[in-house]
């Protein structure tokens, strides 16, 4: 393990899935306290702060949390994967000596308060929003094209939900804890063809936080820390009218993270893959290189994704499909569950034995227009 490698010392997932009685800022406060306690650190130790989304600009949350003596802030907002990017950015800042203890928080309440957290309009708005686009139909277009080019079936997409639901039954905080079958998924109502209701993630309130620390701080803590071995990010977009809906930015973010970490696919024991929709997972697995392009549908058949014994156990908390997707931004839980797996703290029925290398992958924005992919490789003992 390189000595300059930053490490995740604390994580916290808010247990709420519906928070009508709390403000979004209050949820940020809850998760900040939870992650610092998990790390064995205090507010006064924090010298770097990272956040995105609601409830305001980064200085609003610095003010609300009463953070003092910050030396570094970052409010990079690339949609749901923002917090996965923040871990990479924090590790880089720590390597540069810009800060030593970086706190990353996220929270939101779209379930209690509809419309909490929509993206601001850009110059494309008249050419997109005019036509009645939304999150589901934009991912549905990707699914349609993937099916057309590669023969991917609705039953194959359903396998992703089935695996997530089997994991969620062991998570008492998960929104949906009942295992489902392929038939349940393909017989659920169509929301936007070809995506069914059970191809879609939950809408939940909640939040989470991560504490990233320098190797020196990690060595002083009485806590298992997980090293940030590799990070890669990429933005993929409409390409001036040449958009290809069958792949994601993971074709670039994945290799960057793997190279930085010096690992291969065979080294990955566990993966948290952003699962806004089942098609998101299938395209991402192909793009990360776990199978050939177009073979993601076949890859997920036969229990590949199921923990603890599948070829690539994924989303053992139930993922966005079954557990939570706080503020419509599922990147934070992806990091948290990877850390739990690497510490051996996942729910015991789904804990991958001797998990040493984990991957957290986030997707931000929309597969149908423009999006960000961020990949982290985590692992190693400290």
């Amino acid at each position, binding site marked *: 393990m390189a000595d300059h490698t930053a490490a995740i010392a604390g994580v916290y997932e808010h247990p709420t899935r519906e928070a009508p009685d709390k403000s979004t800022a209050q949820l940020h406060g809850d998760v900040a306290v939870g992650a610092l306690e998990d790390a064995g650190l205090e507010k006064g130790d924090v010298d770097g702060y990272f956040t995105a989304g609601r409830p305001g600009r980064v200085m609003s949350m610095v003010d609300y949390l009463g953070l003092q003596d910050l030396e570094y802030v970052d409010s990079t907002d690339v949609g749901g994967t923002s917090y996965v990017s923040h871990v990479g950015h924090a590790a880089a800042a720590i390597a540069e000596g810009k800060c030593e203890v970086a706190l990353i928080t996220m929270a939101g309440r779209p379930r209690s308060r509809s419309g909490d957290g929509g993206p601001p309009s850009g*110059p*494309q*708005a*008249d*050419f*997109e*929003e*005019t*036509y*009645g*686009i*939304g999150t*589901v*139909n*934009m991912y*549905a*277009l*990707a699914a*349609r*094209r993937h099916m*057309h080019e590669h023969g991917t079936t609705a039953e194959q997409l359903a396998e992703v939900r089935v695996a997530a639901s089997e994991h969620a039954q062991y998570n008492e905080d998960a929104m949906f804890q009942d295992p489902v079958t392929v038939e349940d998924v393909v017989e659920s*109502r*169509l*929301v*936007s*063809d*070809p*995506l069914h209701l059970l191809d879609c993630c939950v809408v939940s309130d909640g939040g989470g936080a991560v504490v990233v620390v320098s190797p020196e701080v990690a060595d002083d803590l009485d806590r298992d820390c997980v090293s940030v071995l590799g990070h890669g990010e990429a933005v993929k977009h*409409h*390409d*001036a*009218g*040449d*958009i290809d*809906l069958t792949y994601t930015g993971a074709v670039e973010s994945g290799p960057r993270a793997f190279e930085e970490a010096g690992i291969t696919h065979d080294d990955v024991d566990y993966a948290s893959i952003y699962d806004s929709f089942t098609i998101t997972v299938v395209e991402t697995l192909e793009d990360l290189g776990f199978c050939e392009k177009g073979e993601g549908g076949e890859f997920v058949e036969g229990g590949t994704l199921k923990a603890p014994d599948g070829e690539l156990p994924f989303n053992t908390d139930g993922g966005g499909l079954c557990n939570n997707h706080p503020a419509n931004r599922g990147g934070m839980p992806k990091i948290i569950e990877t850390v739990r797996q690497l510490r051996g703290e996942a729910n015991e029925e789904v804990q991958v034995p001797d998990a040493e290398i984990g991957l957290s992958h986030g997707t931000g924005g929309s597969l*149908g*227009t423009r999006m960000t992919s961020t990949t982290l490789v985590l692992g190693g003992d400290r």
Partner: protein
Amino acid sequence: MSDAGAGDLPSPDVSPTPETEKYWAAAAEGRLLVMRCADCDRFYHPPRARCPDCLSENTEWTEASGEGEIYAHSVTRQMGPPYHEATPYVVAYVELEEGPRMLTNVVTDDPEALSVGQSVEAVFHETEDGEYAIPRFRPV
């Protein structure tokens, strides 16, 4: 212009900018414009002053044929306002004859019958304020 099968779709007002006003004004006349870069000969969409390929300002409006084919489509069955009462309706990428893939609606009485690769042609629906029009497509 025809409004075949499109009667139920809302046509929200648009907010043209100095870069896009010509596009919307042409649509109001039943013409579909795409931009072309004279330096790299690239057709592109949505319109913008500089070519997104080479960043040249040597770009020009050209009239598209309005012909294209479906690249991907989805029948949307659940949506918030202003489209909530228009369901089921079709969002799609249509690949224009000139090259660019354009996000749009396909208007049809039989959305289930649409398929990838199907030929479509442009139709234009006046916006609610009557100032401009929205290009959409229908099966040929």
